């Protein structure tokens, strides 16, 4: 199986979609945010251009996929597209809904009331601290205003007066601790509230802070905060001056209640957290939305991969089927597909394989049958070729007719023998034999057909123009009702020469026998009669009668001898000595021979030659001219030379020939003259036929016209024919 599942083609196909993904990410980054700084229209222009480019790339990728010649890619593309859309559309709806919910949730979360509440809480906490500070300020102010603190310099360290004063101030203002430092920042007196579990280590003194030094520098009280040991303190510094000279520094300290400071710090932490969240509200919102979008993209991608895999698995058998089908189209019937699983596609593959096997078997059978048919056709064509050659070279004319009389086969010999007119339509049926000379053929077939004969043989005479052909026609019924073919086979043989030869041979035999039987006694009769006449002439009473009788016997015997000589000539006519003779020489000799006759005219002296035995042809013409002169009418002799033959005409304007004598005029011993032997025209016609010509009576009535035509046959043709 051909496979197009390479990694490189796959990457080339998905490059446009990777570009679409890249552009989509770029669109996301270019999308203007709510806190965007600067003009927004450039972002929208960029988004529009990127979106257009992404759409163009997507369409290009889809078209590229669809234009791939890989089988099944269209179906696979559709499946993947549908499945991705089935995931993408709900995901988009879900994304939009989630965005709305997130927006609404954030609006609720960061409600103004919450903001206000936190501000108030924060203000409350700050107010508490401010109140403590204010109390400290007021206390320090009162200390200043009362001027009741003892003079420090004359008071020794740790004197009772100072201690009492410190204790008094501590209790008066509610401080937790009061310390007095001298100008050198040395602790000279301290007062502190006693608490339970308080040890000496709790009497440690904290160093003066920046606020304390600031109060010294400014010459007025300052307030400071301190956070130590998980407690918060408000510390007030009050510098003591004597005659504008710093003599000491009070540091009063109040510990803030831990519950309140814890609450205040908690409020501060919550406030800070809330403000941070509010400040990053858009970012958090974007994070949620981006997370959802990434999840959606991942789902779509996974769905796409799953769709690709599924579509490939689904279309792979169809692709195999299509490839196998392509192979089958090219003639390869070994293209079987793998059958996997037990589903409809595997069933289809099984059916396909079975179909291919059957197709292969049928093709093999068909090929074998075709080979056999080809061989048979070759043999049939060979037989047809042999048959056609046989028929073409056959001297017999053959016509094969089917049951309806349609001509299925006719050979050239038949066409020539039956003298089919060349310019007539191609004959497709025996019933097209409408020409006069073909009527006997049609009548022969109708006889064969109407009388329901299996075979029929008959001699037919066809006359076409000047030609008369004797034909032996034989018809045979072919096949029967149950046979593949039924019809008739008509075979024609030209028996003209055979019939003439048989007739002449018969007459020759008769003549020879007659000559033999009659000639022998005639000579003794004649000699005896002459002897009787010489010996007994003087002894008879009536010499005249005797002479008449003996002369009659002698004359009749001589006549019989001449008759027998003609018979002998007819029987033993020599073969013509063919040679080229000019027509003019023939006519010139005849003209000289018949020059005494004034009623005989030779018309014209055409050029040309005939291939003949001049003596025999001259004898024929002399016979014809003698017969014509015997009529006492005017005789015309003329010659016509055509493309095919030379025609000698002898015409007289005598009384003509009777119709009854017309049919027998060329038969031997038929004569209209009392002294004629009746063999002249018979010999003349035989000479004509020996020259492959014919002697015809063209017109029996006056003017009587005979025609002898001789073909233009060359000496070589005659020799070949004789051979």
């Amino acid at each position, binding site marked *: 199986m051909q496979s197009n599942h390479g990694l490189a083609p796959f990457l080339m196909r998905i490059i446009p979609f990777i570009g679409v993904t890249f552009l989509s990410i770029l669109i996301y980054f270019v999308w203007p945010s709510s806190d965007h*700084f*600067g*003009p927004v229209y*450039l*972002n929208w*222009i*960029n988004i529009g*251009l*990127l979106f*257009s*480019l992404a759409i163009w790339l997507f369409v290009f990728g889809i078209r590229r996929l669809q234009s791939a010649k890989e089988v099944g890619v269209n179906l696979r593309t559709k499946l993947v597209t549908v499945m991705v859309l089935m995931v993408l559309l709900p995901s988009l709806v879900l994304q939009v809904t989630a965005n709305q919910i997130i927006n609404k949730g954030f609006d609720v979360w960061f409600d103004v009331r919450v903001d206000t509440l936190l501000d108030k809480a*924060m203000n409350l*906490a*700050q107010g508490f*601290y401010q109140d403590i500070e204010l109390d400290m300020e007021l206390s320090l102010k009162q200390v200043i205003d009362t001027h009741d603190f003892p003079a420090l310099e004359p008071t020794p360290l740790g004197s009772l007066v100072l201690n009492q004063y410190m204790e008094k101030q501590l209790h008066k203002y509610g401080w937790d601790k009061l310390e007095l430092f001298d100008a050198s920042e040395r602790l000279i007196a301290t007062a502190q509230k006693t608490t339970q579990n308080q040890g000496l280590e709790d009497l440690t003194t904290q160093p003066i802070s*920046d606020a304390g030094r600031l109060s010294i520098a400014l010459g007025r009280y300052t307030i400071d*905060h301190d956070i130590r040991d998980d407690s918060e303190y408000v510390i007030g510094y009050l510098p003591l001056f004597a005659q504008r000279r710093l003599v000491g520094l009070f540091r009063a300290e109040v510990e803030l209640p831990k519950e309140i*400071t814890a609450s*205040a*710090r908690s*409020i*501060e932490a919550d*406030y*800070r957290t809330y*403000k*941070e969240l*509010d*400040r990053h509200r858009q970012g958090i919102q974007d994070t949620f939305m981006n997370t959802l979008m990434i999840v959606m993209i991942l789902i779509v991608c996974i769905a796409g991969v799953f769709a690709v895999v599924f579509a490939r698995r689904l279309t792979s058998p169809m692709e195999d089927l299509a490839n196998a089908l392509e192979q089958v189209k090219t003639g390869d019937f070994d293209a079987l597909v793998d059958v996997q699983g037990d589903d409809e596609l595997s069933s289809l593959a099984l059916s396909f394989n079975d179909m291919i096997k059957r197709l292969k078997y049928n093709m093999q059978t068909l090929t074998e049958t075709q080979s056999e048919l080809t061989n048979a056709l070759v043999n049939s064509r060979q037989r047809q070729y042999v048959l056609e050659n046989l028929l073409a070279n056959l001297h017999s004319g053959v016509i094969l007719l089917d049951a309806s009389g349609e001509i299925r086969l006719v050979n050239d010999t038949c066409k020539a023998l039956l003298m089919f007119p060349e310019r007539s339509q191609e004959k497709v049926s025996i019933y097209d034999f409408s020409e006069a000379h073909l009527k006997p053929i049609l009548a022969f077939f109708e006889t064969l057909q109407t009388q329901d004969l299996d075979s029929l043989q008959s001699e037919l005479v066809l006359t076409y123009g000047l030609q008369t052909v004797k034909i032996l026609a034989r018809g045979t019924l072919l096949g029967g009702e149950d046979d593949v073919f039924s019809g008739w086979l008509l075979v024609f043989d030209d028996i003209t020469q055979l019939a003439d030869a048989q007739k002449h041979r018969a007459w020759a035999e008769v003549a020879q026998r007659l000559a033999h039987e009659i000639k022998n006694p005639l000579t003794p009769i004649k000699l005896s009669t002459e002897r009787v006449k010489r010996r007994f002439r003087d002894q008879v009473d009536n010499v005249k009668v005797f002479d008449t009788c003996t002369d009659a016997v002698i004359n009749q015997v001589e006549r019989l001898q001449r008759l027998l000589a003609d018979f002998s000539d007819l029987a033993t006519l020599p073969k013509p000595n063919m040679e080229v003779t000019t027509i003019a020489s023939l006519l010139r000799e005849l003209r000289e021979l018949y020059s005494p006759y004034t009623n005989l005219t030779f018309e014209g002296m055409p050029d040309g030659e005939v291939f003949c035995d001049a003596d025999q042809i001259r004898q024929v013409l002399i016979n014809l001219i003698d017969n014509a002169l015997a009529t006492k009418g005017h005789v015309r002799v003329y010659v016509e030379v055509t493309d095919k033959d030379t025609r000698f005409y002898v015409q007289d304007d005598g009384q003509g020939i009777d119709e009854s004598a017309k049919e027998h005029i060329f038969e031997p011993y038929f004569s209209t003259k009392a002294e004629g032997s009746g063999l002249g025209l018979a010999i003349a016609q035989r000479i004509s036929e020996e020259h492959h010509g014919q002697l015809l009576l063209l017109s029996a009535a006056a003017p009587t016209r005979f025609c002898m035509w001789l073909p233009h046959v060359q000496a070589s043709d005659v020799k070949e024919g004789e051979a």
Partner: protein
Amino acid sequence: MLKVFLFFLTFSFFSFAYAEGDMAAEETHVHIEDGVIYCDVQTFNQEAYVLKVIGSGSPMTVFWQFEILQVRDFWLDKAVVSIRLGRQVIPDLVTQRWLMRDLSVGVVKYTNDAEEAMHFLTRMEQAAVADVSILDKDADFLLETKLFTHEGEDEEQGWWASVTDWGEDMGSVSLQLSQANNDAE
């Protein structure tokens, strides 16, 4: 058609970047005193943001990065000096005090004025960048300043922040070392 399309796309992007560049509002001044390069720099873009952050109680840390680049014709400019100065403000909303801490020298100071704390972060005055003697007097130099800000007290933001946070470019100033040398002589 595609070429025209790509031209507009490129033009739009470059216009966008150019407009963004114009909107950067910063002011950097350099002066050399006694052979020491000092830099005064202030960002105006960050003031509102910084005031909002520290006003809402969130600590904030900034780092000013000063780099002196040797200008080269056919290669990228070479950094010869690079220092980072950090500052931090930790608010105390309850007492409404802001602790200002200079991370470079460790000085700590409280203030009750949020704007003072804000200016502590967004202004850097008299920042000693380098001694002129370490610079080649025949070369041209640029002083580039960047501001890295992040919320919180942590001084290091981790490798991811170092990759993604390229800082805010505060501009670059050409150093006139020849004049400084003359003054020094």
